[in-house]
């Protein structure tokens, strides 16, 4: 019988603004999430174990090397407007990655641009928050996390069942 893990969900927050990083961190911690905050999309990808190797000439530059994920991230919340890599670029890279595509992604923006919002949602973003983000927004995150957790639990049950059956048939 599996014991439900009470470890808090781990959220990766991405925002180039120092003030907004401080705010999102406090919002998430108040809601009992464990938080890691970084200031760029490339730092986020590095943390997620997704390394892009542009030096490789044999492969087209769009292919990313997928390294083993050292830390577990349950949700990514990112600002839209960031220099170099926008939140949209980051969303696309995550959704194109075999290992990361199932992690829910939420986009934040100070600008209410319907076409921008639609584009993000159509490309896999689970939510779009207008800044400044409030506690009522953060409260919307849990269902997305629980949905992913159920998926993970299902996988784990299947694996455990398989292991059980294997042990029965191979006595010590």
């Amino acid at each position: 019988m599996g014991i439900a893990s009470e470890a808090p969900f781990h959220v990766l927050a991405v925002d180039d603004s120092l003030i907004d990083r401080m705010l999102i961190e406090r919002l998430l911690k108040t809601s009992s999430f464990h938080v890691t905050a970084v200031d760029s999309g490339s730092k986020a990808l590095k943390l997620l174990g997704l390394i892009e190797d542009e030096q490789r000439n044999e492969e087209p530059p769009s292919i990313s090397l997928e390294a083993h994920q050292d830390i577990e991230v349950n949700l990514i919340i990112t600002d839209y407007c960031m220099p170099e890599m926008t939140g949209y670029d980051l969303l696309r890279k995550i959704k194109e990655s075999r290992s990361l595509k199932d992690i829910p992604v939420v986009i934040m923006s100070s600008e209410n641009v319907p076409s921008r919002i639609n584009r993000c949602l159509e490309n896999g973003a689970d939510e779009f928050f207008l800044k400044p983000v409030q506690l009522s927004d953060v409260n919307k995150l849990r269902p997305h996390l629980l949905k992913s957790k159920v998926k993970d639990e299902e996988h784990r049950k299947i694996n455990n069942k398989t292991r059980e059956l294997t042990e029965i048939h191979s006595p010590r």
Partner: protein
Amino acid sequence: MHSNSFHCSLSLSLYSSTMDRAHSRRHVASMKQSLFDQGYLDEQFIQLEELQDEANPNFVEEIVTLYYRDSSRLISNLENTLERKPLDFNKLDTIMHQFKGSSSSIGAKKVKAECTLFREYCSAGNAEGCRRSFQQMKKEYAALRKKLETYFHLARQAGPLETAFRPK
């Protein structure tokens, strides 16, 4: 007899310090009310106060302090960019977008309004408008800083009882 008078004076001093604190809290409340009435702050400031708890009793003061420290660099940047001829409106707009975002995150209502105006002048390529609204923004920014310094000082004196109530 001795213990009676001791108890008497102890409860009197407790009473008066309780009254002092109640008075301080009323003072903080009325200052906050006036900051809202005069349009210096908006709802976001209340949101920030709601994030304070026993473990993080000074969050609002900390984030406001960080705002003033961090945004000073953006202001210098704007100042330098405003000195170039001709004006690079795109660059000005980009910097102001960042500054407006931070100002919005701490509930700085008047500062934020001035940022919006500045960005409108950028879109219109209006150099004089940009310079004027930049000067006005700096005035609001400085005025808010003074008000908040006073407010936080009063709030600290009044003690950690909830300050996060909504003004009328």
